[in-house]
């Protein structure tokens, strides 16, 4: 497998059977060991694009290449186990303890439960959680704690790729900033290929090495670094989207 390719969406489109066009002929790449932020308002197809990577959504046309290989050719179950996935509400299994939640994917891959639990304990540290919460259930954790466990679970199987679907949207701004800093620190240490979906342009600029801005109706407005989008917005839509965001960041 060639290195340096990360994830490539090749003119992918998706129309749901109730007729809504979620993604309309989008081509974009996520560089390896870098973070791509997919940003846009709701209905811009950012989550659909993300879910094409681990084949939770199958595009009507176009292909998704993972390190140069078409993901349609891979077995969906093994593919999903090799990709970390963080959902908005943490997506934790309410009936398992924090430790068992984190150890879920390695156990699915066949690791012995005891070893998986040891590794899970280390991950608790990495995402900044105390060991004392290991036997608690998700319903006993705060929003911030649940998100951290979600990230730890996604990292448990040591995947190459990490998909994050608005993971910090449901927490208050202060905790969100902490989580964002944690993610940047982690990324600097472990260098995963991260695809981060958000509707908040500041978060996209703050976290994304590259930012892809999507228009409602699932078309790509512009792709580039934060600096490029701010200095040379491709059109009025990009400019107004960014200005709305920047106004807020100047006030902070």
């Amino acid at each position: 497998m060639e290195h340096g390719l990360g994830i490539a969406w090749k003119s992918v489109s998706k129309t749901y059977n109730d007729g809504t066009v979620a993604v309309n002929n989008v081509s974009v790449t996520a560089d390896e060991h870098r973070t791509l932020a997919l940003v846009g308002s709701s209905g811009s197809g950012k989550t659909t694009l993300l879910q094409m990577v681990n084949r939770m959504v199958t595009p009507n046309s176009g292909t998704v290449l993972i390190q140069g290989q078409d993901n349609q050719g891979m077995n969906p179950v093994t593919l999903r186990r090799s990709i970390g996935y963080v959902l908005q509400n943490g997506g934790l299994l309410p009936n398992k303890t924090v430790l068992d939640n984190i150890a879920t994917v390695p156990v699915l891959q066949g690791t012995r439960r005891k070893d998986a639990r040891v590794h899970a304990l280390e991950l608790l540290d990495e995402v900044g959680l105390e060991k004392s919460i290991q036997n608690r259930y998700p319903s006993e954790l705060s929003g911030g704690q649940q998100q951290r466990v979600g990230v730890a679970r996604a990292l448990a199987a040591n995947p190459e790729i990490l998909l994050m679907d608005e993971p910090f949207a449901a927490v208050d701004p202060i905790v969100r900033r902490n989580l964002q800093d944690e993610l940047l620190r982690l990324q600097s240490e472990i260098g995963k290929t991260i695809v981060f979906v958000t509707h908040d342009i500041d978060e996209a600029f703050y976290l994304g090495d590259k930012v892809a801005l999507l228009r409602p109706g699932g078309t790509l407005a512009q792709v580039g670094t934060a600096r490029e989008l701010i200095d040379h917005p491709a059109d009025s839509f990009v400019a107004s989207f960014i200005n709305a965001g920047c106004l807020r960041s100047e006030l902070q």
Partner: protein
Amino acid sequence: MNWLILNCAQILHYALQHMLLSVFPILLGTLVAVPLARLANGFRLTRSSIYVASSVLYAIPSLPLLIFLPALLRTKILNPVNIEVALTIYAIAIMLTSASHAFLSIDPSVIHAADAMGFGAWKKFFQVELPLAGSQLLAGIRVVSVSTISLVTVGSLIGVNSLGFFFLEGYQRDFPLEIWVGIAATALIALLFDQILAICGRVLMPWNHRRVTRERSAA
């Protein structure tokens, strides 16, 4: 009141018989209905007809079913298997609908997360769907248990005796105390089974009983 003391051996005998006759249908009814409901849920066609199937099964009057089973099963008339099979059919009728609702009530985002993590169908059923539908399934089993325990008494009309014996003998001898003792004993057994099921629920599903502790954010 000394009737109670004089006959407590007989009462205990029939109470034990009553419990034995009820346990089997409750367990088998649940073991059959839960997977069947999950399977039927899978297809849109059968999902909507679960309610109809249950109401048809439940509409069958108990007496003729008890009479015809010996002929259908080629068993002896007084063999308790007949009433066990009849009660199991009723247990399935009740359990089908509540099991179907239980599985439909699971939070879709958790199912989505499980799929995304790469759970296979069987693992997802046992490790995710069954535990999460657990509390509603348990409510269904408790309804089945109560109705089975009270339905066992109909067996006395065809010679398969349980606490129902006291209803018939009390009615013949114009002896209300005997009937009320039978009713009280049946209700007590229903309560006993109900509490046992409740305790099983608490032990098997601890996550249902712990709420958010005081916010101790780690950041």
